[in-house]
């Protein structure tokens, strides 16, 4: 029997293709063009070759911003992933507690980024904010607008508050998909709580956890709005993560060429990590 081959359905992809061309490919091409040129505005450009790339790659400012970014992402992953799993493990599996927990957990995820930033800014203000004032009343010398350590603490706390729920919800979904038979078998074997977690729950959650780590990595690596509203990259440059530094360079200093080169380097790093995670997920898929 011969199947008729009809590939005309591909034409339906054309609208999406055009849309992606306009919102992704053309701006990206423009960034590539900018990254090799110098401009003073008014659409006049001068060829600079690879100068901006060299400048960015060797600039201490970029190294510092990248270092801060990696540290931030690493710290929030280190907190959010174990914390998310722990909360998911303690959440009820049936009864009225389930919808209550799920809704409470999704609340922070629904709040817009700039609102989160503004909320935490006011919350943490040392003179009038609840957190800031309480910490000072307890005897801590806390002021996130002037002390780098406090600024980091507040930024990380804000991100943990905002995004741990995502890890919780994903882990919870992963936990709920485990068949009761596994737990029964573990019980018959007399497995401890830790062994059940280590050999049943964790392997079964591997897929969703990879996804959670990928999502949290990407979001935190490209974080902009929340620290921008909370600290504005300050005090000094101490919380100026990559995106904040990039916007400072592109719009604050109008250094379009170096900023374009920096965004391309940034883009390549993100692309590499995405690729690694994609392969990890595909490996998990192939195993199960």
């Amino acid at each position, binding site marked *: 029997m011969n199947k008729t081959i009809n590939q005309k359905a591909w034409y339906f992809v054309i609208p999406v293709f055009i849309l992606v061309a306009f919102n992704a490919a053309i701006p990206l*091409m423009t960034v*590539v063009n900018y990254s*090799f040129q110098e401009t003073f505005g008014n*659409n006049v*450009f001068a060829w600079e070759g690879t100068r901006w*790339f060299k400048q960015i790659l060797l600039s201490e400012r970029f190294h510092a911003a990248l270092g801060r970014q990696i540290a931030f992402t690493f710290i929030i992953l280190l907190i959010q992933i174990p914390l998310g799993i722990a909360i998911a493990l303690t959440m009820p599996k049936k009864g009225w507690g389930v919808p209550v927990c799920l809704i409470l957990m999704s609340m922070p995820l629904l709040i817009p980024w700039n609102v989160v930033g503004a909320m935490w800014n006011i919350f943490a203000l040392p003179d009038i904010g609840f957190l800031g004032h309480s910490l000072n009343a307890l005897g801590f010398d806390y002021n996130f607008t002037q002390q780098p350590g406090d600024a980091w603490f507040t930024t990380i706390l804000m991100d943990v508050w905002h995004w741990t729920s995502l890890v919780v919800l994903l882990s919870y979904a992963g936990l709920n998909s485990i068949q009761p038979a596994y737990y029964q078998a573990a019980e018959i074997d007399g497995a401890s709580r830790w062994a059940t977690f280590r050999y049943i729950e964790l392997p079964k959650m591997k897929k969703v956890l990879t996804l959670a780590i990928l999502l949290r990595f990407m979001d935190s690596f490209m974080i902009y709005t929340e620290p921008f509203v909370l600290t504005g990259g300050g005090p000094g440059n101490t919380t100026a993560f990559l995106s904040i530094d990039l916007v400072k360079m592109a719009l604050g200093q109008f250094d379009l060429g170096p900023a374009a080169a920096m965004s391309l380097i940034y883009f*390549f790093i993100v692309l*590499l990590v995405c690729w690694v995670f994609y*392969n990890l997920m595909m490996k998990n898929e192939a195993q199960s």
Partner: protein
Amino acid sequence: MFTKLYAATWGDVGKAKEKGFFDFDLFSWMAWTWQTASFFIFIALCITVMLIWEKKVPGGSPRKGILGLDTTRGDRLFISLLGSAFIHLGWLALVGSLLWVGTILCIGYAIIVFRYV
């Protein structure tokens, strides 16, 4: 010097600009240069070659390469291009000049990727 700069930018605002053959108004804001244009033409050519290759030998010749990854031809092209970007960046950061040597390295790298990964 500043009058020159001034003339080259804001002084030109009202004047009719002399147009080159490829100066379409639609694209001029994108600040094209022949170097970047040829880069994108190269990428487009790569994708076209992949399309033709796929027509001739369908299926993408999937295999498990030396990295233990299941790759098809498309994956190999992606790994080659992304790796080349990093090789070029590394060359710029560590050596700084003679970028074409880096390009030759990339071609070697791409051949290895297509052969073994």
